[in-house]
């Protein structure tokens, strides 16, 4: 399926929840309503024509305009097509429904996005920090992150 067809079938199912798309980009992406992301993920995985069964990568991004994004790079082992799905959330309430029970491969990526950028994946089976220590202050890959002067009594800037 081409990106256009994938977009059309998503649009037919979810209508207004498909917010925006850039299908002429080198890697076409579709922006969906974060509230509907989980349903879209189930749809993308379960529909026979789409069959996106392989979640390559989930990246958390801070767009530095008060918004955070979870970017899903999806691929279908059955049809060998791919698409990028984006869910953009405001920084104050960065909540996305987790897709970890749709694609088990998204589990650790979502934990990393939570750890690094601070997107909260609701319904995630195990949303703990993954790379930084459990008591680490803040989310390091946010653009407004300030390195703390002291961490557990150790001076940080050297």
């Amino acid at each position, binding site marked *: 399926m081409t990106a256009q067809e994938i977009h059309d079938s998503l649009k037919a199912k979810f209508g207004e929840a498909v917010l925006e798309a850039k299908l002429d*980009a080198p890697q076409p992406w579709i922006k969906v309503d974060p509230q509907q992301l989980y349903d879209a993920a189930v749809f993308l995985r379960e529909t026979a024509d789409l069959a996106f069964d392989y979640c390559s990568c989930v990246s958390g991004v801070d767009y530095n305009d008060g918004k955070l994004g979870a970017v899903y790079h999806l691929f279908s082992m059955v049809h060998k097509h791919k698409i990028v799905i984006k869910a953009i959330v405001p920084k104050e309430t960065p909540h996305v429904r987790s897709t970890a029970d749709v694609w088990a491969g998204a*589990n650790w990526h979502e934990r990393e996005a939570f750890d690094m950028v601070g997107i909260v994946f609701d319904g995630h089976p195990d949303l703990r920090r*993954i*790379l930084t220590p459990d008591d680490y202050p803040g989310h390091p*890959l946010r653009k407004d992150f300030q390195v703390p002067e002291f961490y557990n009594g150790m001076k940080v800037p050297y």
Partner: protein
Amino acid sequence: MLNELKTLPTNYVTTPGEIHTSTGKTLRTDEMIINMGPQHPSTHGVLRLEIVVDGEIVVDVIPHIGYLHRCFEKHAEYMTNYQQVIPYADRMDYLASMNNDWAYALTIERLLKIEVPQRVEYIRVIMAELQRIASHLIAVGTFGIDMGAFTPFLWAFRDRERILDLFEMTCGARLLYNYIWIGGLSHDLPKGFVEKAKEFCTYFRPKLKEFNDLLTFNEIFIKRTANVGVLPKDVAINYACSGPVLRASGVDWDLRRDDPYGVYNKIAWEVQTGKGEMGTVGDVWDRFIVKVREMEQSVRIIEQALAGLPEGNVQAALPKRIRPDAGEMYVRTESPRGELGFYIISDGTGSPYRLKARAPAFVNLSVVPAISRGCMIADLVAIVGSVDIVLGEVDR
């Protein structure tokens, strides 16, 4: 003192009948938590496995990673130009630096929409495949140690040494090369490299057979690995496993062939998959044999690439300052451990706005709990070894 105690993690507070794992599960009275690592030889680095055991049987495994976190992605954002990221990419998967460099350089080249000269493509394939053999040699060698066989490890390192000599001859470094640059290579191959590399190929083929005779088809080894840690096909895909781990589960999938880059499509070679010869498809032995057979294929690729190596330039024409247009790109390549992807967002300045590395070992490690529930502790060592993790890449 009391305050300090209160801040301890809950799983260390031993109120009778109330012991939790760090995921919040309460233990039954006959269960126990054992920590394997972070300093345990069979974890291949600083990985801590929190194991819930019932006697010898593993009830649950909770991997704890991050001990080697070096803020690679944060560093990349703070570089003054794109080239400066390459040494950091080197250090991600320190056993396969060439492949990391290539993946990163390829992403930037696709962002810049530039083609590299044919000679560069061929040299990159040669380097990446040599590196794949070196990396797989460590993987199968150390896996031998995990299973209690010390000699194969020494044999594997002896052969790897020859590859490192080739790399040293090329760029002076033996582990972290900084050889593949954006738009080309840091410099051309040295005199005599082609002959030396050909020599290595003829040397290595019989050694691989020796290795198989010593370890792969050893009955004790087979008994120890066959039917252990079976990863079914659908689970492997669902967990987004890649590389030898995915192929061992019977999925005929290799990015070198299926999402081609470099000149792999001009070269004849075969994707190796697990067939369950000694037990079930996707068991530990399959994951092991896939790596061994891939080394054989890599030798084939290197020989053909050496034969077809064209003359020419080793650096494409690049602007003095690399500033890709605003946009984003996710490029995936086949590193020895699987799908190594870089997702880079450019905002038109001289350094990446956001760089995310999709490390294959990170994702492959996440499947370990799913396939080790119900096995013995000793088998867990086999499973972790067969997944072939490099913590530098897992933690980045």
